[in-house]
């Protein structure tokens, strides 16, 4: 531990400012890339409408035919926006979950939230069980939401009881995955052929259920949740240094955890309700953000959202062009694109933060 005289205080301060500027730059670049992919996303699809026409459709509707406008307004735009929002929501949920449960494997998917949602959807699709007096269109998303929310409440309950500890919560989440998957399998076993295919398709995760009202609800949830997440950023950064230390810095860790789980459940349950199971974003988005920007949550949380939005948009484009003429369920594509990227990142020699 020899003192290196070459490093002066001024040098350190300017290095610190450089690091901050670099992070802002990286954030802007991911944001810009997401915008580019979004542009690509609204310009691809089975109907031949390139970017120029989509652009015209947005700002000069008179120049296009009615069917063209309908495709742009009711298909291309809502799908692409849904990809951005769901990617950001799931990735933010994953980032918070990994921090408050101190586990790099935590994500809405790995801890049973998505499985619970599938179970709720299965109840509605196969057995027709749902909340009374609900319009049929809403049965599946509402069921999915209720079950996802209930599973997070269970996790919350466990996280609050001191006895279980953080490992207990993670193990319990994994147990939830198996339980709900078994229940879904049971329902599939008794399902009719038609209900079965509907359910399988739902659980694959697809953007084609995106409507403007769904988008509005998800956007609202994100608008409400994100400021609270950002306000907790300092506390979450401190929590990364250990629970005892965070508490001795005056952070009520139990309350932080509870509030964060509430946010996670709102984000994950709403996303899953509208697009079905999308497994990879919540796990990978935060990891990629962490590798690029470190764990100062003021940067990590927004970076996770942007990374999630970016991956989801890429997957959305991929789902349209991988098999020409066929719209693949986006949930399949996220894993196909995400896994190799992820492997490259974790196998690469760790960079300096």
């Amino acid at each position, binding site marked *: 531990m020899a003192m290196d005289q070459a*490093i002066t205080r001024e040098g350190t301060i300017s290095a610190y400012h450089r690091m901050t500027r670099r992070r802002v730059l990286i954030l802007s670049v991911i944001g810009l890339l997401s915008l580019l992919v979004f542009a690509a996303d609204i310009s691809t699809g089975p109907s031949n409408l390139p970017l120029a026409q989509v652009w015209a459709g947005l700002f000069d509707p008179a120049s296009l035919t009615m069917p063209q406008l309908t495709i742009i307004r009711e298909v291309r735009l809502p799908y692409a926006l849904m990809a951005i929002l769901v990617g950001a929501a799931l990735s933010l949920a994953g980032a918070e979950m990994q921090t408050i449960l101190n586990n790099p494997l935590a994500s809405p998917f790995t801890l049973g939230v998505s499985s619970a949602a599938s179970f709720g959807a299965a109840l509605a699709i196969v057995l027709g069980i749902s909340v009374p007096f609900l319009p049929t269109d809403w049965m599946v998303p509402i069921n999915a939401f209720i079950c996802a929310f209930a599973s997070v409440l269970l996790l919350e309950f466990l996280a609050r009881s001191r006895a279980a500890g953080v490992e207990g919560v993670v193990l319990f989440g994994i147990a939830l995955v198996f339980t709900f998957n078994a229940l879904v399998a049971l329902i599939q076993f008794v399902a009719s052929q038609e209900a079965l295919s509907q359910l399988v398709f739902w659980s694959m995760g697809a953007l084609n259920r995106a409507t403007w009202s769904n988008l509005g609800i998800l956007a609202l949830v994100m608008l409400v949740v994100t400021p609270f997440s950002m306000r907790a950023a300092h506390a979450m*950064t*401190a929590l990364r240094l250990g629970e*005892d230390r965070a508490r001795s810095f005056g952070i009520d860790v139990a309350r932080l955890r509870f509030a964060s789980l509430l946010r996670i459940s709102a984000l994950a349950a709403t996303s899953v309700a509208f697009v079905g199971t999308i497994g990879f974003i919540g796990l990978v988005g935060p990891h990629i953000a962490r590798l690029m920007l*470190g764990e100062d949550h003021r940067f990590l949380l927004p970076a996770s959202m942007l990374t999630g939005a970016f991956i989801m948009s890429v997957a959305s484009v991929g789902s349209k062009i991988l098999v020409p003429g066929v719209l693949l369920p986006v949930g399949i594509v996220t894993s196909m694109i995400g896994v190799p990227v992820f492997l490259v990142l974790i196998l690469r020699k760790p960079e300096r933060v």
Partner: protein
Amino acid sequence: MTKMLSHGDALRIEGLTTGYGGHVVVDALTLAPMLPGQVVSLLGPNAAGKTTLLRALAGLHHASGAVRLGEVDLLSLPLADHARHVTYMPQSLPQRVALTVLEAVIGALKASPIAGEPLSGHAITERALDVIERVGIGHLAMEGLNHLSGGQRQLASLAQALVRQPRVLLLDEPISALDLHYQLRVMKLVRALARESGMIVVMVLHDLSIAARWSDRIVLLSQGRLVTDGPPAEAITAQALADVYRVAARVRADADGLHIVIEDTL
């Protein structure tokens, strides 16, 4: 900023009982008041209740009895208020955290407000760097915690605790991973800071000689009870060491301090 030192700001521990679940670890412990500027070392064999006592003082453990800092009843304070007066440095700092030393120390300042000090971003950076330099890791300020050795992480951890400038600093084995140079450096620094600011330092140590040389007071615990409490030369005696650690020792005090030679186990 030098604070007025007085008995009024002493840390008083009376009838303190604490433990895990139903298991009592520290039983009705009463200690003489710890005075501002004093460095107090907690010694004792494994499972004597040293860390538990420290954690109870830090507000991390439920405890009954009384812990008062001046007029403030620490046991009844919510964590955020408690943290204005007391900072606790746990034994370990997690290894795989992608934060630089400077970020981690700044994070300690920003985690919760410190009494009456809304600092600017610039002032926070300066204050963090001051502490990092005093601890002796100025050259590592921009290094990631996940690239540091165990000893370097321990120094970063100490910097985090010091930067909050608490009135009571609780250190759990602060030098366990350090080489000889940094062991002495840390002990010197902690004592100097206590003298400068009137901070009360309570730490758990295992090395008797280091404790004897750098502490104003030694509190020797065994099985959650007080064995001896006093200046090193009074608290560390052959008899006390035989009782507590079951070792045969010779203890000699002279102008250079306390010389402790352990001869054999009993």
